[in-house]
């Protein structure tokens, strides 16, 4: 029977709607999960740890002991500005002295030769060594292997520092960087009372251990100390990604609601088209149990097919989303594992039981006499119980999918409100036109009479379509608002390229040069008096400046 119905095309709509619901659940939830994991991993690289304590002075030793008790891995950083001197020059530098365990998350990138490729390292310089940025080498006019003076000590430059995982993206980070071992810090004697020093204590470990340590710290931290996670360290990135995640969740949840409506409508249509089939089968001797068994078997196989198709589609959706966002964040595509299959099973069973089962059950109640009397009509699926079961199932599915009860409830309350207002209005309208029907003539009278005769069904269908349109419009509005908000974060004509370290003697020439490029630009503002080779302005990461500005 399933094969015959499939061949006749009657099951395709139901299968398509169910597969779509599963695809949405699997595709978007798998993607958002992967996105979360990726964000977490990458965000911790921004910190070089899972959590950080920022402090303007050393923290008490018992704090570190407490962290150790929670089995947290630790590293320390002391950051300060100091003059670095070589035989050929001096340069104010942002120096970071790190413990041997630094970084706890992410990797350092260094070069052992000026022209060679960058290599990754999981720990900082050894005692007696210092790593400098290339521009610092240029400014100090030294090469790898040379020694630099920092305070009372001399350290040998053993690598070019290319990247640090926790290098802040704020403007302060534009000062040239140097990385040295914490073991050498005391010998430099640069840290004196009154020195402006930043102490960072890095921690990594299990989420629960970190939470316990955070609890222990409560009440002990002063105003000069802060507990830092990705949200506080990189709020712009965290907010943008959170918004993207929330939008995907909202889109997915609305998608499930739409798919649920599609399943309900297609199942209703399917059951109406099968009324004659059932009456005929009963006339030929099929009993109610056989009919129920037959349609339950159909639902079972339909669920299996929908699970397979929906899972594959969902996998495809996840891949498409990962590819679409690939230029912003790398998200690995998951495997179709047991969790995905469980999710597909639950979605298929819930959707089919909630939306497809009730109309199919009513089929079994069709009297065999219908073969002689078509006027017996189609069986009525109980509207109220159908709505309640649909509402409850939708709540369960949305909540299971989004894991976000406020989002689920607000969506459902919105949907119920739309349902009540639109449904009530249409019902009242149809009742009202009953009294005014005599005013209509010809075709209008026929049309109005037909509307009134099936007013319950007409009100229900119109309300469902209104709800569908509302959900689609909501999605569209949210998408548009989201994009607008993102765009509004940066005002129009916000600059995207910057020129820094321009010597006062070169300002006029530079202004003329910028004007000659015919590129929108701001005025030049005074900044830090760091020296720089003005000729470097002609190139930006290997690209001529004129081209870089245009792009």
């Amino acid at each position, binding site marked *: 029977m399933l094969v015959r119905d499939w061949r006749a095309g009657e099951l395709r709509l139901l299968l398509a709607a169910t597969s779509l619901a599963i695809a949405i659940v699997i595709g978007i939830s798998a993607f958002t999960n992967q996105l979360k994991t990726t964000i977490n991993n990458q965000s911790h690289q921004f910190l070089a740890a899972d959590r950080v304590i920022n402090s303007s002075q050393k923290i008490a030793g018992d704090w570190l002991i407490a962290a150790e008790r929670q089995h947290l891995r630790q590293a320390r950083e002391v950051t300060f500005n100091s003059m670095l001197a070589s035989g050929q020059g001096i340069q104010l530098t942002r120096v970071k002295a790190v413990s041997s365990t630094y970084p706890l998350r992410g990797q350092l990138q260094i070069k052992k030769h000026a022209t060679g490729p960058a290599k990754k390292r999981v720990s900082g310089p050894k005692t007696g060594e210092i790593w400098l940025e290339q521009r610092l080498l240029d400014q100090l006019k030294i090469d790898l292997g040379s020694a630099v003076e920092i305070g009372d000590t001399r350290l040998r430059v053993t690598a070019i520092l290319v990247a640090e995982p926790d290098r802040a993206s704020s403007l302060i980070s534009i000062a040239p960087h140097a990385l040295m071992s914490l073991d050498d810090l005391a010998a430099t004697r640069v840290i004196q009372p009154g020195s402006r020093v930043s102490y960072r204590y890095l921690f990594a470990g299990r989420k629960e251990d970190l939470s316990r340590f955070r609890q222990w710290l409560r009440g002990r931290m002063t105003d000069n100390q802060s507990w830092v996670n990705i949200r506080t360290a990189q709020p712009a990135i965290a907010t943008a990604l959170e918004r993207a995640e929330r939008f995907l969740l909202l889109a997915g949840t609305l998608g499930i609601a739409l798919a649920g409506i599609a399943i309900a409508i297609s199942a209703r249509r399917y059951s109406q088209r099968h009324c004659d089939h059932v009456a005929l089968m009963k006339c030929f*001797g099929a009993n109610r149990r056989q009919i129920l068994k037959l349609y339950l078997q159909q639902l079972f196989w339909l669920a299996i097919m929908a699970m397979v198709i929906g899972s594959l589609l969902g996998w495809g959706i996840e891949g498409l989303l990962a590819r679409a966002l690939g230029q912003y964040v790398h998200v690995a595509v998951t495997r179709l594992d047991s969790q995905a299959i469980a999710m597909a099973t639950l979605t298929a069973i819930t959707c089919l039981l909630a939306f497809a089962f009730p109309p199919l059950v009513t089929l079994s109640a069709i*009297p065999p006499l219908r*073969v*002689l009397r078509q006027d017996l009509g189609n069986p009525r699926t109980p509207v109220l119980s159908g709505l309640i079961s649909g509402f409850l199932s939708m709540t369960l599915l949305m909540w299971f999918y989004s894991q976000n009860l406020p989002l689920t409830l607000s969506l459902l309350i919105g949907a119920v409100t739309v349902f009540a207002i639109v449904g009530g209005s249409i019902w009242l309208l149809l009742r009202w036109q009953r009294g005014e029907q005599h005013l209509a003539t010809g075709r209008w009278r026929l049309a109005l009479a037909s509307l009134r005769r099936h007013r319950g069904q007409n009100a229900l269908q119109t309300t469902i379509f209104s709800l569908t349109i509302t959900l689609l419009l909501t999605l569209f509005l949210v998408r548009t608002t989201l994009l607008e908000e993102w765009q509004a974060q940066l005002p129009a004509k916000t600059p995207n390229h910057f020129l820094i370290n321009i010597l006062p003697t070169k300002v006029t020439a530079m202004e003329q040069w910028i004007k000659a490029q015919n590129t929108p630009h701001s005025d030049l503002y005074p900044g830090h008096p760091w020296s720089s080779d003005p000729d470097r302005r002609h190139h930006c990461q290997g690209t001529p400046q004129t081209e870089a500005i245009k792009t």
Partner: protein
Amino acid sequence: MLRCTKLKKTVTTRTGPLSILKGLSLHIKKGATVAITGPSGSGKSTLLGLLAGLDLPSEGEIWLNDIAINHLNEDQRAILRCQKLGFVFQSFQLLDSLTALENVMLPIELAEQPNARLAATNLLQQVKLGDRLQHYPAQLSGGEQQRVAIARAFANTPEILFADEPTGNLDLRTGDRIIELLFALNREAGTTLVLVTHDEKLAQRCQQQLALDDGRLISTVADAQPPC
């Protein structure tokens, strides 16, 4: 074989109860051909539905052999229909999504009989549709569709065949051919045939004619001649 006594059927309408059959009694012998005639609204189809166990009477009794149909529940009546009854309808009632062969196989499969495909093929060959097995109803003419329906009606070798206006949707010539076929198969199988018709000519071909009017049996004509 089939008899009913003081059969009444009343339905509830918006304007109150409506009596369709008003205390009707009749007796049909095994192997007989019976025509139920009467004007529209006289209760012909209602009577057919009650005799076939598709519906229950409000009052009265219906006996098929020694079984009181009106005392059976829905499932028991379904079994009875499956084992002993066949149907031909005015609007053919073929399932659009099934081929001619599958339509004929349907009652055999529901009865869980073996070799449904072979039996259905033989029946379709008997009604001269052996070359149209895989055709869908929409691909068949009205006459061909009714021949498929007749083949389906004989699929479970019924004891009684009920036909509701079997030529009502066919032109005269095609209708005659269908009737010829119906009577021929009925004769071969020794089936009791009960048909509802407006067609006087068709009714006269039956051994027994029951005329209904306003829910009452107004005349019974028994023809001594064997069926044509």
